[in-house]
């Protein structure tokens, strides 16, 4: 087990060396936060109580979302993008002749990245937003614990999805197409384009049942205290998707290594 911890810690440290990327990323998030607040203010002014959010919920959603996009990896993450490239180039061979499990290895790498981005820049947009707007902050140790758990689970769900996308390169020669499709699905169903609560009827129900909902929408709702079925059900929902995705991931890994050809000499 020690090796997974060791590589996770080193991945954390690696991302900590990208200082300019971190700063400019947080700045971009903040700018987008203001733009989105403008849009959301108009929207919730027109339709007060839209999706069960009040104005303060909607604005808090914006700033949380901006902080969490990177750590959760809504647009994809450097780590799993690298994995996809390794599959395409055949470099993956190097990972496969190591005495480590491929998925656990990349999970550790990804968690190291996510933890750095969560701790160092995750809260930055929220702090800026809180100066300007009246945002919601949770109270109570238990809620904070649930939020922390929800965030970690969200990152794990996201990893499960991104891992499968990266492995698709074993079967599909040009897996960049898969990556683009995954990006569109992720942007829409995670609640990045609009909070999923605003979608009515079966579209909303469907969107909120997808694994992408478990990445971003669910943890934010835990913060806001707006999970339709309560916090327990929300965490179980995330856990369910993690089990499903990691099982498929494990299957795909064994299948890929047994049946599939590694590119290049």
């Amino acid at each position, binding site marked *: 087990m020690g090796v997974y911890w060791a590589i996770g810690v080193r991945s954390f440290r690696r991302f900590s060396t990208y200082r300019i990327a971190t700063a400019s990323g947080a700045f971009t998030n903040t700018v987008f936060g203001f733009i989105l607040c403008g849009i959301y203010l108009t929207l919730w002014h027109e339709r007060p109580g839209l999706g069960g959010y009040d104005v303060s919920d909607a604005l808090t959603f914006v700033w949380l979302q901006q902080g969490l996009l990177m750590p959760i990896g809504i647009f994809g993450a450097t780590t799993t993008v690298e994995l996809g490239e390794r599959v395409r180039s055949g470099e993956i061979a190097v990972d496969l*002749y*190591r005495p480590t499990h491929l998925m656990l290895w990349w999970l550790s790498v990804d968690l190291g990245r996510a933890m750095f981005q969560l701790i160092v820049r995750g809260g930055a947009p929220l702090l800026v937003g809180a100066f300007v707007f009246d945002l919601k902050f949770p109270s109570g140790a238990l809620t904070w614990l649930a939020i922390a758990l929800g965030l970690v689970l969200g990152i794990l769900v996201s990893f499960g999805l991104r891992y499968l996308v990266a492995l698709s390169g074993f079967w599909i020669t040009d897996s960049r197409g898969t990556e683009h499709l995954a990006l569109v699905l992720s942007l829409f169903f995670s609640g990045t384009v609009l909070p999923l609560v605003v979608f009515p009827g079966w579209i909303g129900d469907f969107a909120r049942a997808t694994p992408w909902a478990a990445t971003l929408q669910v943890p934010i709702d835990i913060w806001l205290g707006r999970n339709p079925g309560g916090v327990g059900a929300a965490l179980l929902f995330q856990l369910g998707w993690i089990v499903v995705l990691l099982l498929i991931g494990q299957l795909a890994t064994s299948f890929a*290594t047994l049946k599939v050809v590694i590119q290049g000499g």
Partner: protein
Amino acid sequence: MAVIELSNVSRAFTVTSRTGFRRTRREVRAVDGLSFTVEPGEVVGYIGPNGAGKSTTIKMLTGILVPTGGSIRVAGVDPSRNRLKLAKRIGVVFGQRTTLWWDLPLKDSFAVLQKMYDVPRARHRENLATFVELLDLGDLLDVPVRQLSLGQRMRGDIAAALLHDPEIVYLDEPTIGLDVISKARLREFLAQVNAERRTTIILTTHDLDDIEALCSRVMIIDHGHQIFDGTLAHLRASQSAPRTLVVDLATSLPPIEVPGATVTKVNGPRQHLTFPTTTKAAPLLAEIAANYPLVDLSVAEPTIESVITQLYTPTPTS
């Protein structure tokens, strides 16, 4: 007990190529009915022209590629079924790829490897100290891998592959792109590791000096078939690559006539003659000296390159 055993191993790839809307499938037999065994402590040079199937063989030996036919046993187990278990007992270097972590200082890569292979700390320190000294890595330990030159990185990769005292090491073109001095140093290092630790080494290369310096045994593969297996001396002797005799005469003459040899080139008073390995040189010389104004001469043995080139391009059989 053989440490590596292949019997009748094949690996086919299906290659699909597309021309317009047509898709054609073609089967490439990268390795075709390969059988050999390797004993512990052997250093085997595994050579062959581009596309011969060397890398494919190595991939099957490490377990990351499953053979489509035949059976492989490495250290007593089937590599593809026991890939993770076997990984602890082998070391791999693919010349064009790196095991090291691009953004980490070299020493961090080594620290991760210690954990990965569960190397006892004391042993790890001891091995690291040895390799740092032998491969001259001291100044490089704090440098991120992406800033290393090719030769420096390769030295790091070799150390990384050996830190966990593997029983078998596969080196796929480890000297590719290295300068003469780095190559020599690497060969010396590998020879020493093999001598001191009895590590079995399988080495593929296009540099025959690697083979001459290191390998007690050469295996040649072409189109997935084994075409030679034996010592280097044996390889030289087995082939009837003609020897060359260069004679300098007192004057320019038309091509001289000597039974058992043929003139291939005339260059003023200097003439080049070739004769088969089966013919003795001394009687030829006597013959020439008796009939022509001989001033000087030299006999050239076929180079190992020419021997192998001859093997790669088989003479058409009638």
